[in-house]
């Protein structure tokens, strides 16, 4: 139930709008902590949205994306009640995935 991904997909008839908010530090590897030591890079590299077995949107990210990243896009089609799969992988190989129903 609990997931790092909060996603909302809304059908507007012809298109489906998807908004996602992910909990992730997105450390770029250029920031120092209070002791002056560099915080090692830790950021999501790939975020994929799938609908009907096909990728509808793929984000390739670097450390320049803000902490707890947000992204919004829209695709043609998509029916209310259909499922969208969302998954991410970061530079340490950690991953998370979830699904949501189009509203």
């Amino acid at each position, binding site marked *: 139930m609990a997931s790092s991904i909060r996603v909302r997909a809304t059908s507007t008839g012809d298109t489906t709008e998807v908004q996602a908010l992910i909990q992730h530090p997105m450390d770029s590897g250029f920031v120092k902590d209070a002791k002056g030591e560099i915080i090692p890079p830790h950021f999501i590299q790939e975020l994929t949205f799938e609908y009907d077995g096909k990728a509808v949107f793929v984000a390739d990210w670097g450390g320049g994306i803000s902490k707890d990243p947000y992204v919004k896009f829209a695709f043609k089609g998509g029916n209310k009640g259909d499922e969208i799969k969302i*998954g991410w992988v970061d530079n340490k190989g950690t991953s*998370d995935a979830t699904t949501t129903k189009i509203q």
Partner: protein
Amino acid sequence: MTIVTSEFSRTRRLMLKSAGVAALIGLGVIPLGVPQALAAANDKYPEDAFKQKNEADAIKALYGKTPEPSDKVKMDAPEIAENGAVVPISATTTLSDVTSISFLVTENPVTLVASYRIPAGTLPSVANRIKMAKTSNVTVVVEAGGKLYSAAKEIKVTVGGCGG
């Protein structure tokens, strides 16, 4: 006022708790299923492009060609960003056959911030939030019909997003 604050801290605690649970689940069950599905979905992560220190090199590493400026690429971004750690930027285009949209910040230590793959049927419009080290040009590159188009805008940053 006090009620608001305590409400906030409670939700915050709840969120932190759920984040912890998510981390546990993330370590356990899910990684088995996910990476294969992701790997099969599309091309590889452009590791090399995310190592480039200047804009031209990053675009070349990503697309292998150079873009031409186009007024059909529209960027929606603030003139002045008070907090460089979170700069909301969106891009959209009236060009057809768009396959990719990328965001680059010239003055960032790593110029390329994000590159989005747009399959057929997905609208050529994306919104996200980026970090900016300091006042810089931000470039949006759109790949449409095998050609590259770009738009650039200077965004002033009052407080940089690279900590320190």
